[in-house]
């Protein structure tokens, strides 16, 4: 099967600083992958590269076999760390906005999820709490029928109950044809739902593999292993 994402020998330097050094990785379809690393490890750089927001200094990135461009943007549903949505818009305006922008947006699915979380479509974004805004944004992103979902800190700013809901949504949304990348440092929360994990440290891949295989081999949780590998 063709990998959904294939990164080969990618480097990214900002002036003299090497943010990513010779990173290679492959993500097969039907996988949920945790991209884990301490602050400044290169997670955000990698995510921006995948989304075509930055250009690699060296190396190649392929999404479903294609070089980055308009076609790959259609296949990727991206949840950035910070919101880019306009504060004055109502939730229902955003639904229209996403319908216009993305052919694969399933407005009914989004409506159902909003209803489950009791989020009123008539409320203005400005009037919603930070956590609710994040939920709205996640709903928009997960309601696309994309090949690759790239979620940058999807559970960072929400309460534990909402975290459960979000993680559950990721499980529910699971498909054999698509993959999900979750970048986070809340490892304990995500390790049960990931197939594979990638540890990124100082711009390099330090460890990657199947969660259960790693647990079996090391006899410890991914969270504990992370603390060991990245001990300050």
């Amino acid at each position: 099967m063709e990998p959904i994402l294939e990164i080969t020998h990618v480097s990214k330097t900002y002036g003299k600083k090497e943010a990513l050094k010779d990173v290679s990785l492959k993500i097969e379809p039907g996988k949920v992958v945790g991209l884990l690393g301490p602050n400044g490890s290169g997670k955000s750089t990698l995510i921006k590269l995948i989304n075509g927001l930055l250009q690699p200094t060296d190396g190649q990135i392929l999404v479903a076999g294609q070089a980055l461009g308009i076609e790959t943007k259609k296949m990727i549903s991206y949840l950035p760390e910070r919101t880019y949505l306009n504060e004055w818009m109502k939730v229902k305006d955003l639904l229209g906005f996403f319908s216009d922008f993305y052919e694969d947006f399933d407005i009914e699915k989004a409506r159902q999820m909003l209803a489950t979380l009791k989020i009123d479509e008539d409320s203005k974004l400005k009037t919603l709490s930070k956590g609710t805004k994040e939920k709205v944004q996640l709903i928009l992103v997960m309601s696309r029928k994309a090949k690759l979902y790239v979620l940058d800190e999807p559970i960072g700013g929400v309460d534990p109950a909402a975290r459960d809901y979000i993680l559950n949504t990721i499980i529910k949304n699971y498909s054999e044809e698509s993959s999900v990348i979750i970048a986070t440092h809340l490892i304990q929360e995500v390790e049960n739902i990931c197939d594979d994990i990638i540890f990124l440290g100082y711009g390099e891949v330090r460890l990657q593999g199947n969660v259960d295989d790693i647990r079996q081999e090391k006899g410890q949780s991914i969270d504990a292993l992370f603390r060991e590998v990245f001990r300050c």
Partner: protein
Amino acid sequence: MSWKFDTTRPIYMQLVERIKLMIVTGELASGSKLKSVRDMAEEAGVNPNTMQRALAELEREALVYSQRTSGRFVTEDKELLTKMRDEFAEEKVKTFIESLMQLGYAQDEVITLIQHYLGGIK
């Protein structure tokens, strides 16, 4: 909501144990149909691939079987179920006895303790 897991051991193995227990206790009745992998994964709060791996293991041990189009079922093999129940019991007895021995009880004292607890010979 989602199941609790020991973080130091592979999740799929814990799913296997948990589902076995559900079969032994009859929470999943012998011969009954299992929910879809997706639903079971959601209930447990795990990745569907992990649940799939657990079910494949249970299938290998013949505790569940699949029927090509209609899904997965709990085994109706009574002998196998009894054997599994015995294994569970043995494991429980082992940890129980070991913990009492650790506290310094001798074998006959352990027996007295059990009889006492059961309200038998005082």
